[in-house]
C-alpha cells in the first residue's frame, strides 16, 4: 500500500479521530489549567445545566455518519447490517438529545416548549434511548461473533471488572430509587440498568475481539467495549468524588468522560469503514482483477 493511499480521508479516518480527540483533550486540559489559575481575574459562563457540549454532539454526529457509511457496505438481510443500523440509531439519538438540550437553553421567546420538558426529552434521547439502541446493536454483533466461534469465557479478572461496574450502577440505582420517584429519577434508573447490561456486553465483546487480534475489525469491536468501560468507570469516578469537589470540577470531569467515550464510539465504525475501503479500493485499482467466485459455493463448505 502506498503512502498516498494511506492518506485518503476514509482509510485514515481512525487516525484523524485519534488526533482530533488527543488535541482537543490537551487543549481542554490546558484551558482548565489556565482558568483555574486566572479564575479570580474573569468569570466563565458555564454551559447551562444539562446541556451537552457541542464537541460531544459533533463527535456523536461523526459516529452516526461513520455508522451510515459502514451500513452501506452490507446488503439487505446481511446479519451485521441490523447491528450497524441499531448503532447508527443510537448515535442519532445521542445527537438529537444533545441538540435538544442546547435548545432548552435558548431564551424563552425562541424555545419550542418549556425548558424543563425539552431538557427531559433530551435526557431521554441521549440517555436510555441511546443506551438501549447501543445495547441492542452490540447484542446482535455479539451473537454473530459467538456464532462464528469467537466465544471466550471470561476469567476472574474480567468478571471482577464487569462486577465493579455493575455494582456501581446498582448502588446508584438503589440510591436513586430510595428517593422520591420523579421523571428525572426514572430516566436515571433506566439508564443505570442499561449501563449494567452494556458493561456485561462490553466484557464479552472485548474478549471476543481480543481473540481475533489487532486487525481493524477487531479494533472496531474492541473500541465499543472501551467506550462502554470509559462511561462506566468515568461515571463511577464522578459519582464517587461528586460530593467532595466543586461543581465546576464535576462538570469538567463529566466532559472528560463523555468526549473520549463518544470519540471511541466514533472510532469503531471508522475502523470498519477504513477496512472496507481498503479491501474494495485495492481491488478496484488492480488491473489484473480476476473474475469473482471461481470457487462456486465456497462458503457452503463451512
Amino acid at each position, binding site marked *: 500500500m502506498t503512502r498516498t493511499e494511506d492518506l485518503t480521508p476514509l482509510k485514515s479516518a481512525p487516525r484523524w479521530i485519534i488526533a482530533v480527540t488527543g488535541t482537543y483533550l490537551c487543549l481542554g486540559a490546558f484551558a482548565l489549567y489556565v482558568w483555574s489559575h486566572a479564575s479570580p481575574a474573569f468569570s466563565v459562563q458555564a454551559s447551562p445545566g444539562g446541556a451537552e457540549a457541542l464537541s460531544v454532539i459533533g463527535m456523536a454526529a461523526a459516529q452516526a455518519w461513520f455508522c451510515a457509511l459502514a451500513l452501506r457496505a*452490507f446488503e439487505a438481510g446481511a446479519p451485521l447490517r441490523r447491528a450497524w443500523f441499531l448503532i447508527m440509531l443510537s448515535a442519532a439519538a445521542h445527537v438529537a438529545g444533545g441538540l435538544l438540550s442546547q435548545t432548552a437553553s435558548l431564551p424563552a421567546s425562541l424555545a419550542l416548549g418549556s425548558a424543563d420538558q425539552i431538557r427531559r426529552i433530551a435526557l431521554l434521547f441521549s440517555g436510555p434511548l441511546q443506551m438501549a439502541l447501543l445495547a441492542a446493536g452490540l447484542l446482535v454483533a455479539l451473537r454473530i461473533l459467538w456464532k462464528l466461534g469467537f466465544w471466550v469465557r471470561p476469567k476472574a479478572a474480567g468478571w471482577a471488572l464487569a462486577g465493579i461496574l455493575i455494582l456501581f450502577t446498582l448502588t446508584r440505582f438503589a440510591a436513586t430509587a430510595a428517593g422520591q420517584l420523579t421523571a428525572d429519577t426514572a430516566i436515571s434508573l433506566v439508564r443505570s440498568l442499561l449501563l449494567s447490561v452494556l458493561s456485561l456486553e462490553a466484557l464479552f465483546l472485548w474478549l471476543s475481539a481480543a*481473540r481475533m*487480534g489487532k486487525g481493524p475489525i477487531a479494533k472496531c469491536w474492541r473500541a465499543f467495549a472501551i467506550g462502554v468501560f470509559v462511561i462506566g468507570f468515568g461515571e463511577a469516578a464522578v459519582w464517587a468524588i461528586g460530593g467532595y469537589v466543586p461543581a465546576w470540577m464535576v462538570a469538567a470531569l463529566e466532559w472528560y468522560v463523555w468526549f473520549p467515550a463518544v470519540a471511541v464510539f466514533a472510532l469503531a465504525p471508522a475502523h*470498519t469503514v477504513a477496512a472496507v475501503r481498503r479491501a474494495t479500493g*485495492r481491488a478496484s485499482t488492480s488491473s489484473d482483477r480476476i473474475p469473482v467466485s471461481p470457487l462456486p459455493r*465456497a462458503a457452503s463448505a463451512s
Partner: protein
Amino acid sequence: MHPRTATLVSFSDAELNPARSRRIARHLRQCPDCQAALERISREKRSLSALAGRDRPAIDPQPSLAAVLAGMARWRESPAPELRSRARAQIEIYFGCGAASFLESPDIRADELLARTLELISTFLGQEAVEAVTGEILRGLDCAALTAEVLP
C-alpha cells in the same frame, strides 16, 4: 549443509513452508546421506504407528523414498498451499493473527479455509469486500488446477 533430523521429520510430515520444503527436496535429490536419513525416519514412523495401532494404510502403508519425493513435488506444484497462505494473510490483515490461527485448524482443507475466510469477510465487511478479497486471494493462481484439487 545437511538439514537437521527434526527438519527432515517436519519435511516428511509436510509441515514445512513451501520455500523451505523446496530447498530440502532439492538437497535430498543430491544427497544420499539425507535420503537414507529420510528413509530411516519414514521407517521409524511406520514402526511407531504400527506399535501404537494408528497406522493409516489408506494413505500408503510403505511409501518408498521415490513416492515421498513424488508426493512432495506434486505438493510443491499445487496451488493449494499458496491459496492457504493467501487466505491466512487476508484474515490477518482485516482481523488479526488470533483469528487466523483460530480459523486454521491443522486438518482444515484449503477450500474450507477459503470458505471460512470469505464467510468472515462477508459478515464483517460486506459482499463487495468479499469480491475484492476473493480476487486478491486467487490472483495469478492456476484456477483450473485449484478447482480440480480443492473441489472434488
